[in-house]
Each structure stands twice: as C-alpha cells, then as structure tokens.
C-alpha cells in the first residue's frame, strides 16, 4: 500500500534525497573493452594526490548500491550484455559517465569488427569526459559537472 504524503512533505523529502545524492554519490566502475589506460586513471583519482573520497564520492563494487556508473572503453560485443545487466541492476535514479575517447566514439578502435560502438549507443550517457586517457582531474571534473547539473530542479 502506498502512503500519500501532503505535497509540502513530498517536496521536502525530494529535496533531502537530492541533497544526499549530490553530496555522497556511490560510483561503480565498469570496463567494457578499454585498453586499461582510462581505468588506471580512474583508480588514480582514489589515491592520495586526487582523493575523490574527500568530495564524498565512493567507488564500490556492487551495482545495487551505485548511483553513478563510470564506464570506460568502447563497448565490445561480449561486454555489451554485461554492461546492460549492470545498468539494469542499479537503482533509479542512475547516471552514466563515459570516460575516454573510446567511450565517446570508439576512439582508435572505431570500426573494428568486434566493437558495438560508443557507450551512448548502448546506454543513456549523462556526462562525457574526453581524452586518451583523460587526466584524473578531468574525470573528477566530469563527475562534479554531473552532480552540479543535478542541483537544478528538474
């Protein structure tokens, strides 16, 4: 049974949810066919020099806990189904950040027989981070830009 709340309450609760989401998004990372370069830069964002966790962003392992999917690399035919499955397991609302030229367009692998294409051909992407690979600062900037965009009331 669904309880209906009076509209001012709904507004407050929604505001609270958005506030919590923006201040501590949990991130999951999936490599759908990348060369590794982007992945090590994502890992580097966790380490002391960049320290993503100081912004409240946490990378963790389960899609069921994640708000943001950071995805690297072109989508290969084998990993396409996995990528979709991970995305489906994430609770709503969910966002995808595509990292690296490969994720944006297929990059150097564009046109290869085993590549489905860029990430946005498979999933809806909210933020794009270009570069081969993007610097850790750029990846942080991409995630923060996504969070900023959530502050605007939809």
């Amino acid at each position, binding site marked *: 049974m669904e309880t209906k709340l009076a509209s001012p309450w709904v507004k407050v609760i929604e505001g609270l949810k958005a506030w919590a989401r923006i201040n501590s998004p949990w991130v999951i990372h999936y490599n759908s066919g990348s*060369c*590794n370069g982007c*992945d090590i*830069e994502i890992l580097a964002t966790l380490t002391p020099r960049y320290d993503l966790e100081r912004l409240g962003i946490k990378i*963790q*392992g389960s899609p069921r806990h994640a708000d943001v999917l950071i995805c690297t690399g072109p989508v290969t035919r*084998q990993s*396409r189904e*996995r990528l979709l499955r991970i995305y489906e397991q994430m609770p709503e609302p969910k966002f995808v950040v595509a990292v690296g030229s490969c994720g944006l367009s297929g990059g150097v692998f564009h046109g290869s027989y085993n590549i489905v294409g860029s990430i946005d051909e498979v999933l809806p992407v909210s933020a794009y981070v270009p570069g081969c690979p993007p610097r850790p600062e750029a990846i942080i900037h991409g995630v923060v830009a996504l969070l900023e965009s959530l502050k605007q009331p939809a």
Partner: protein
Amino acid sequence: MDLEPNKKFVVPIGPQHPALKEPGHFEFAVDGEIVTGATVRLGFVHRGIEKSAESRTYVQNLYLMERVCGICSHVHGTAFTIGVEHLAGVTVPPRANAIRVLVAELERIHSHMLWLGVAAHEGGFDTLFMYSWRDREKVMDILEEISGNRVHYSANVIGGVKFDISEEQRGKILSSLDFLEERTRHYLKVVNEDETFLGRTVGVGIMTREQAESLGAVGPTARASGVERDIRVDAPYAGYEQFPVRMITDTRGDLHARFVVRIEELFEAYRVIREILDHMPEGELTARVPRRIPAGETISRVEAPRGELLYYIKSNGTDMPERVKVRTPSLCNWGSITSVAVGHKLADMPMLLVGIDPCFSCNDRTITIKSAGVDLGWTWEDLRQHGIEAYR
C-alpha cells in the same frame, strides 16, 4: 539444500567485480575453504586489434598498438617500431635508442608500483596501496614532463623517438629518482618484515622452476621461480646493449618472491635510468623511413614489465601490414594461475591472481587452429558475422 557429498560447489567471480579493474570471469570449485579447481574465461575486451591493423597504415598502427594496453603502451610501440624498422632496413640513431630504454624503464617503474599497490590492496593492506600510488605519481609527473601525457606517452615514431630530454628535465628526473629510491627501500622493508604481510605471502602459491618452465611463464613471474628469462639480457634490443641490466631472479617461487623480484627490479630501473642520463649519446632523434615498407616478415621481442612481448609483422610492400600478430606476456602467465590455485584457500585467490600482474586488455584474442589443407583465413566480414553470431 543440496547435501549431496560429491557435488562441487563453484564460486563464480566476475566479469564485473570489485577486486580487479578489468573484466575477466573465474570459476573456482571449492571443497569447504579449499580450491579444488579453477577456470578462467577471458575475452571480454577483445576488440579485434590484429585484424584492424591490416586496414591501417604503419603510422596509424603505431598508435593502435600503443593502445593494446594502457599500462605498458610504450613497449608495444617499441616492439612494433623495431619490427617495422627491421623490415625497412633502417638503423635507429643511438640517442633515440637510449630514450626508448629510458621511457621503457620509467614505464616499468610506474607499472611495478601500480602492481605493488593493487597487490597490497588485494591482501587487505590498503595503506601500502595508498602509499605506493602516491609515490607513483612522481613517475607519472616525469612521464608527463617529458612526453606531455600521463598514460599513452607515445614516445616512439617509426625510425626514432618523438622527444628529447633537456638538461632541465634531466635534473628533475634525477631528483625524483632519489625520492623514489628511498621510498622503494621502505617498501622492500615492509614486504620483508611486516608480519601479516609475510603471513599472506610466504609459502603461498609456490610455483616450482619445472612448473614455470612447462607452463611457459614469463617475466617476473617466471624469474621469481628461478627461470632465467629476460629479453633485455638474453637478446638486447634498442639501447639495452649499451646500457645492460642485471637479471633479478629468486628461487623460492612463492608470492613473496614475486614481490621481492619486482621491487628489486625497481632498483635496477633506477640505476639504468641514471646511467642513461649520465651517458646520453649525442645525435639525431629519428632516421628517415620510407612510407612503403619492403615486403618481408619479421619477429621482434621486447621485455614488457610483465614479461616477454612478441610481435610478428608481415609486410607485402604496401603502406599497410599484411599481418600483425601480438603475443603478450599476461596470456602466457594465465596458465600458472589455474594450476597453482589448486589446494589453496579461496581467500588467497585475489592475491594469487594479482601475483602474476594480470592484465586483460592485452590477452583477449580469437584464434583458429589451422587444419591441413583448409584455408582458414578470416575476412573482415567473416569476423564481424562471427562476432554477431557468437554474442547474440
């Protein structure tokens, strides 16, 4: 609940899992805590690079090959260029060779430190992970300083290298090396003295010399089992003739030996880099290479941070190769996991896995085995169709 006594319980891991950053799928059959069998399924990042290389020019291919793997992109570029230069009959100027070795050793430092951190992380030792990655940023700074990029430095061009090392950069590299050397000494101490760490590594995952040889292990994984195999020593390429390295081996063959061998290799890398910076040959950076490469075939071998990397290139006289075959070290080392894993606790699996410094992006490929008389050459269309069918 199924209480059938003989039924195997299989623990699947992956392809998306928090331990490794790349997709691979493992299945461990367990009896209680103990692993009784292990299988690996690879192939999630197969992108079709070898086939793509056939429709790109040599210059384009250089950039494609660097992107086989993001961690060891320089050695892929080097192996490819050495092969093409050999086909074209070009001699690379000595200064370019020295810079190739310099970047290769910097890359080894970054790769080994990255590995040290990840391996410590798998052992639940996150402090060491954070420390080694913090210090690794120093190498990344050097690489960025000399090449302009942190990961794909693209030092090679066919016929030489792209950038020079200036006096100012030399000073910066030397001072960073001093810092790194001191830190590495600290790591060696931690790895050798920390009780919990020793408890997780000494005597775990022992691979004997015979096993290593029969499984075809390469690189530090093999050297930790006492196999003397290092392309930099056995068949020096680029500048390794002029700047020789000492081969580091260990005879114990357990996880601890793999840690020690890699850390000792760091010291060797620091020494070689200093040597190069002190005796940098003068001269040009590139030699002229024709756009069309004469017909022929060649094999080039280099020592990647993970072991022997082999390239086979066949040219048909045009500006595109007819065939490029890559054999990467990680694939050779996978076999060691599935046999060494048996008899260990499931909890040791993550550390055993990273013990070989696995890398997935470079070992996912398709192979067809040629039977006598039947031409199994695959065209682009065949492959695409096969891909679509196989993963429908």
